[in-house]
């Protein structure tokens, strides 16, 4: 009895292990940022080769130029190679040492994973849960949709009006979302994880450094129109937002809205404002145009200094009360005096 039981157990383990081994590689190739994928890579000790680096360069180039990464065929060899390409891509991106490239790459990787999440929803539904558990998110399926704990929702949902908590169905600590939104939330979680894990700090092989040099040349060459505008009377918070944009730093949604309201209030045309946002790593002409035109047409009131401060956008105690009231000869002069005294 005992022996028989042991035998059955062994057989079971062998079978499932084998099965899992297969399934795991597929999972890892779809979601190369996962802990499982990392473990696989460490165990296998994947090697870089000229070919891998070339393919990685293509992957990064696609991310920068097209804003998306192409999915590849799913042969087992290709899956393993995919992991090596991913690792090499991260090296190239890190070697670029450029925020725009890093952020835009992360967005493209997250989108790629999002596409897999969508297709895996039917083909490998268990993958979705596995990815969710990477981030400690516990989704619950119900008749009406998917429930997500409100803290996870707040941490991982995209900062857009569609996800404004005020209009969501919140009850007993859970928010009701659609299955599409579930994937979107995971995508955002992936992007955040990727952004915080880059750059990789290491000495890179010569070939990686060379690929990075070529990638940097692919960056869009945009004259930052912001600098063409007379910035003398821009308050420090607005200058900071413009600088961040110019440096390709991902400015939060609230910051973008505040900037758009400010620029439109001082009479800038939507077209000029859109140009300023062009250097955001996740720039999408369509979305930006819609939002900027909406803001311009609605003539929103500029948030006051205390609101700006609440959003974490205030950077200096200039005392103007509202960014629109800022005058360099008054507030700027005062700030400079204070600085001198320090």
């Amino acid at each position, binding site marked *: 009895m005992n022996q028989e039981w042991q035998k059955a157990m062994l057989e079971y383990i062998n079978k499932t292990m084998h099965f899992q081994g297969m399934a795991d590689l597929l999972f890892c190739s779809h979601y190369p940022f996962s802990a499982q994928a990392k473990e696989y890579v460490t165990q296998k000790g994947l090697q870089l080769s000229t070919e891998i680096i070339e393919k990685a360069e293509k992957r990064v180039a696609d991310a920068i130029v097209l804003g998306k990464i192409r999915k590849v065929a799913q042969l087992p060899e290709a899956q393993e190679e995919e992991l090596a390409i991913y690792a090499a891509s991260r090296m190239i991106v890190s070697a670029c040492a450029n925020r725009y490239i890093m952020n835009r790459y992360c967005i493209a990787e997250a989108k790629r994973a999002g596409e897999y999440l969508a297709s895996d929803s039917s083909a490998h539904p268990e993958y979705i849960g596995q990815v969710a558990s990477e981030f400690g998110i516990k989704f619950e399926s119900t008749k009406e949709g998917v429930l997500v704990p409100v803290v996870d929702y707040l941490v991982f949902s995209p900062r857009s009006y569609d996800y404004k908590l005020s209009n969501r169905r919140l009850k007993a600590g859970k928010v009701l979302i659609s299955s599409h939104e579930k994937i979107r939330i995971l995508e955002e979680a992936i992007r955040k994880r990727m952004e915080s894990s880059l750059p990789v700090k290491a000495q890179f092989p010569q070939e990686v450094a060379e690929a990075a040099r070529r990638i940097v040349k692919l960056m869009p060459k945009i004259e930052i129109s912001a600098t063409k505008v007379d910035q003398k009377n821009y308050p420090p918070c607005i200058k900071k937002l413009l600088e961040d944009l110019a440096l390709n730093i991902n400015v939060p949604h609230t910051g973008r809205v505040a900037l758009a309201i400010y620029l439109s209030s001082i009479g800038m045309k939507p077209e000029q404002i859109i140009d300023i946002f062009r250097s955001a790593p996740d720039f999408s002409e369509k979305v930006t145009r819609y939002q900027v035109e909406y803001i311009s047409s609605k003539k929103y009131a500029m948030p006051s200094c205390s*609101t700006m401060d609440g959003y974490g956008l205030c950077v200096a105690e200039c005392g103007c009360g509202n960014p629109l009231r800022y005058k360099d000869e008054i507030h700027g002069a005062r700030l400079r005096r204070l600085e001198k005294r320090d």
Partner: protein
Amino acid sequence: MLAQQQTPEEKYVKDAFMSYYKNRSFSVPEVHQREFGFGGWERKIEFRHIKIGTNQELSAKLAVEAPFYISYSVSYYQFPDARPMPKKAWLGADLVFDLDAKTHECGKFTCERCLQEVKREALRLIEDFLVADFGLSKKEMVVNFSGSRGYHVHVISNEVKRLDREARREIADYVAGVGVSFERLFWKEGKKLFGPNFSSGGYGEKFAKAFCSKLNEDAFALFFSRKLKLNEEKERLIGYIQKGEWGGVGVVGFERKLEEKFKQMLPELSVNIDANVTADITKLIRMPESLHGGSGLAAKKVSQLDSFDPLKDAVVFRGGEAKIRMSETVPAFQLDDQTFGPFEAGETALLPQSAAIFLLCKKAAVLA
């Protein structure tokens, strides 16, 4: 500190504060990770970026200095005394809500009516929002009287600790009803109007419930249609709403009227909080159980909010009397179950210590 001329009033109140802080021990959760701020007679926060290692150290410091205001950071930092802010190394923050009485004719002399109103708001915040919507447990909350015109609710839990500024802004907006939109809660299928029901959660549920209970008010029902005067018609409409079918009962112009009422009712459904306090993780907030230098009342921790009476339970100075002269007109006010005033400017009065300190702190009187 610069040695400034202390007024007799400042000295009198300081001595009283000293007696309160002497031999009293305070317990601030994770005290060593908080930034402290102290205020004087003129300013609520004169010094900040102060680190205090232990609760014993804190209690000892207060006993010696008896500051007029004591605040600590809602945030936890690795280096609470480092400057500027980014060098403090943020570790997380409590989630706090600040409710203040709306100012009306009582002005700076907060009256009982204001305090009742703000207490009701605080209860609604806790029951209808933090517990019902956010699923938080009351065990994770510390509620205290602000010491002046309102209440603070601190949510202390590992779950909320990691929320960043933007997430907190979302919570604040939700509670304050910012961005709630009719178009998002109601939708049309064909010509039929659909919307929330009693179990939708969020503002939809709040509105559906409030709407149905308001139908009992004739004026409200008649605003929509004459036929809603009839009880059976009301019942029929409520039945439809329970299924989310708001367009179930044919009423002309129903959607437009509904939207109008929705906008009117929104302030009653939300809670009037200071959203910036909730969103601002660099905020210093009054230390519970400390004294408020603008009233002489204690920022008492409250375990039973519904029976809490700040004008009695937060009174701490009950030692004798003081003669004071009013420097402005003072309306009648209540303290410790007694009514004082009204007083004319220039009038002198012999008042119990608590009332005298109350007016001295409000800078409405001087020692006579």
